């Protein structure tokens, strides 16, 4: 592998952590960040997949810019230690992305409290366990950027996905609260709301897709939103209009719609 880079004050690589980097949006975004000059720590449960991603990134960049760290977001108590270790290995932290998310198959008839609680644990509690210490750190540092991957599904409580929708709505609210808390310290918080992006999760859960975009394109759009320091960004943009319409459908009509 290529040589490490002698960094100094003027050519420092910005440093990023991507939680949930082994596949889908997290994987594509990690590739994109590395290509844009970041040093990236890849976190996820599946170490073999994660190491393959790290190797692919390092080969593509011709330098050691990504490394894998095994972590299960359900182990909330370990987060402060993992955060310390990973920032030490990175040599700092400029960008934190919480991408981990899980979704049970959409089904408008089935009641699944276990699955719903599981999603809340991964999508919300796991996020809180990370976002909170990261926000505290960025507040002390007087800067930094937090990105949470939410979903258009969190904009309205919908028939086929009560658990998933709730988890994303909760994440949106948590991110907004953090944004209002840390903005005065120079910290940016971006809520990403993807529509349909061609990932394993989409294939596994959605019965039909509407104009889904390739995951690489999704990563490019997310990176553009990060670079612009957007507060909320729908990926791709058309979902902002779709969501606007859905949010304004009166309840007495909405409960009759099979969406």
């Amino acid at each position: 592998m290529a040589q490490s880079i002698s960094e100094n004050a003027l050519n420092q690589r910005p440093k990023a952590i991507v939680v949930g980097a082994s596949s889908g949006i997290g994987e594509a975004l990690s590739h994109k960040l590395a290509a844009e000059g970041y040093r990236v720590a890849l976190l996820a449960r599946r170490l073999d997949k994660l190491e393959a991603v790290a190797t692919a990134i390092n080969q593509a960049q011709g330098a050691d810019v990504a490394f894998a760290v095994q972590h299960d977001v359900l182990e909330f108590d370990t987060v402060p230690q993992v955060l310390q270790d990973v920032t030490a290995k990175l040599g700092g932290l400029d960008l934190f992305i919480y991408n981990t998310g899980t979704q049970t198959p959409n089904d408008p008839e089935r009641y699944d409290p276990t699955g719903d609680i599981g999603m809340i644990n991964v999508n919300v509690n796991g996020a809180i366990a990370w976002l909170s210490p990261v926000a505290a750190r960025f507040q002390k540092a007087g800067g930094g950027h937090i990105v949470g991957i939410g979903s258009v599904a969190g904009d309205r409580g919908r028939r086929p996905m009560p658990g998933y929708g709730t988890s994303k709505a909760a994440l949106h609210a948590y991110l907004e609260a953090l944004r209002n808390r840390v903005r005065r310290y120079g910290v940016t918080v971006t809520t990403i709301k993807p529509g349909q992006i061609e990932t394993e999760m989409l294939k596994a859960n959605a019965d039909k897709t509407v104009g889904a975009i390739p995951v690489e394109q999704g990563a490019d759009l997310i990176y553009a939103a990060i670079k612009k320091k957007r507060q909320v960004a729908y990926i791709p943009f058309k979902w902002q209009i779709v969501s606007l319409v859905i949010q304004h459908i009166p309840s007495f009509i909405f409960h009759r719609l099979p969406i």
Partner: protein
Amino acid sequence: MIAKQLDSNRLERTDGWGQVVHAVDYVYRPTTVAGIQDVLTLARDTGRSVGLRGGGISYGDASVNAENILLDLSRMTRILDWNPETGIIDVEAGVTMRDLWRYVVGDGWWPNVVPGTMFGTIGGSLAMNVHGKNHWQSGTIGDHTLEFDAVLPNGDCITCLPDETPDLFQSIISGVGLFAIVTRARLQLKRIYSGRLKTTSHTVPDLKSLLTLMDAQKDDSDYLVGWTDCFAKGDTLGRGQVDATVALAAGKDPLPTQTLRLAFQDVSDTIFGVIPKSILWRVARYATNNVGIAWLNRAKYWAGKLQHGKQALNSYAAANFMLDYVPHWKKAYLPGGLLQHQSFLPKATSEQAIREMLTLCQARGYPSYLGVIKRHPADDKYLLGYSLDGFSLAMDFRVTARNRAELLQLMYDLDDIVVAAGGRFYFAKDAHLRPESVSASLGAERMQTLIALKRQYDPANLLQTNLSRRLFGKQFQVQSKT
């Protein structure tokens, strides 16, 4: 990975003085030797390195240690012993130059060596082995250090005297905090018979005259400093001003007790009696660009011409601590910060190298905003000695989000000129050097000694900073046991 967790509440953002380097570190500020030893133990338990910080006025990354422990000694501020008969003082490492001179000046003493700002600590001054405008005459602070106490990375406390343990003495002094943590120093101060110094200013039309005049003045002046207008081109390249300063001999000041008072030494915090200096940097911001600074340099040169050959009396504090004249002036360089390039050149190649560097900066569109030239003696005594029998050139550059890549390339090209001229670098000012430039300028022999001493006194590489990782990272890596 790491055995024990550090207290996240200790996380603080620390900056290099030039505000180009920013880091987040776990900061500890003990007040005792036992407190320092506890921090070393904590570092070993948590697998972290320990960086040292005093006044935090190194321009670059010499006093930050990102994501690791930063041992800030600025709370160790006690003056332990002072003898106004002999001029020998014992101070803790966190005592600043300001604390020091203010304590002794009333008794008619002054530190032998002070840098251009009074906000550095004695510990930091020893780590960098600082010099002043009297470098040619008086050497570095190490030359006036009678002994010091230090904590070694293994926790042992030692006392170092120049004659008893010369290798440790000469490597801890100048060693940029890589070998030990100085906790106390005994310094020999110098007698002064007035609180004032007499400065004669000479305006010089070009580089050759500037260097020639400084060389001619070096033995007759107590303090000597050259300023050059880095915007001047062609025949006027290197034009500037030489300030030659002498101390007043005994009996020359009719009222020494008055000029030695703090009230006389303290630099006024207003200009023209009414404008607070604390607001000056806000005004200066608007001039901190190529056009504004070119005019300021021109104005300084022509104003200097009016004063040519005239003598002025200044207080010791005003004459020595020129960098403190405008408080927080570095902020005029925000948001990108300030980068300094300082090189030490042998006399034979000085003129040519300085000419090349000034011309290169102009050709790239980055003329230095401030150019300072000083005369220095050879230094083969200290491990990381930076000085050569010749001249130094210090240049300040404004960093912006857009110029970083071009500026960095310029720095590298300047470094190459320095290395080719047989010159050296000074780590207190550095934020950009590459390991190969440092190895080339220090020479193979010194590099080997450095690595050998580091392995001997700090085999676990416990003492690190961002600077040490950048410049010596590979060489200091702990040898894995096979």
